[in-house]
């Protein structure tokens, strides 16, 4: 179980493989990579040329660790890895990695999606997009609240 908040990019292959390396009891590794899209606001005609991710140092790591700990109480997991970047990112850049190892795929998929849903609503990161009209803070999405609420039952 390991959490990193960093400016640097990460290596998806290295991180995914590390979740099962040297183990014979992992049957399933589910991962998620989130990336910066250029067409975020294409409905409104503004292309995103760059993005800056602000965070709350200290709290970010704590909140991610709390989310991971919660996942490990809900499912049988053999490994969880979360990496979230901050700072200036360009379209196509990786933002976040979540990887989960388990004996069975059901647990791996559910826990991976759970961590992403909780991260989206509970980890203190904020995105500001550069567009031709200037910088614009991204609004929180109701869909993210609904996604997180699914796990509350």
């Amino acid at each position, binding site marked *: 179980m390991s959490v990193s908040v960093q400016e640097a990019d990460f290596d998806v292959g290295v991180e995914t493989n590390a979740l099962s390396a040297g183990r014979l009891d992992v049957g399933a590794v589910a991962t998620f990579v989130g990336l910066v899209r250029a067409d975020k606001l294409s409905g409104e005609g503004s292309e995103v040329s760059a993005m800056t*991710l602000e965070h*709350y140092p200290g709290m970010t790591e*704590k909140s991610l660790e709390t989310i991971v700990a919660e996942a490990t109480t809900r499912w049988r997991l053999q490994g969880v890895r979360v990496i979230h970047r901050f700072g200036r990112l360009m379209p196509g850049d990786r933002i976040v990695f979540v990887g989960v190892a388990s004996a069975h795929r059901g647990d791996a998929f559910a826990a991976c999606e759970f961590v992403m849903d909780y991260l989206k609503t509970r980890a203190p990161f904020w995105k500001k997009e550069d567009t031709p009209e200037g910088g614009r*803070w991204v609004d*929180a999405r109701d869909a993210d609240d609904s996604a997180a609420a699914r796990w509350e039952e």
Partner: protein
Amino acid sequence: MSVKVLYFASLRETLGYSHETLTLPAAVATLGDLRSHLAKRGGVWESLGEGRNVRAAINQEMVGPEVAVADRDEVAFFPPVTGG
């Protein structure tokens, strides 16, 4: 009672402050009290007023307005998060 207050993202830009250290009057007991206390500064500080979509943390844990504020707490105000 003295607390450190942090502001993030659009709220930080609106207020023009990233942090401040405050000595609180005795009437300010909870996070909700602190928020109203700050909003009463008027002007841009009304961004912290009731009904505004502001989240808060005490000592780096997201909590509700009913939670008590203690001496030397680190309090943070910020908009809904948008990471991931």
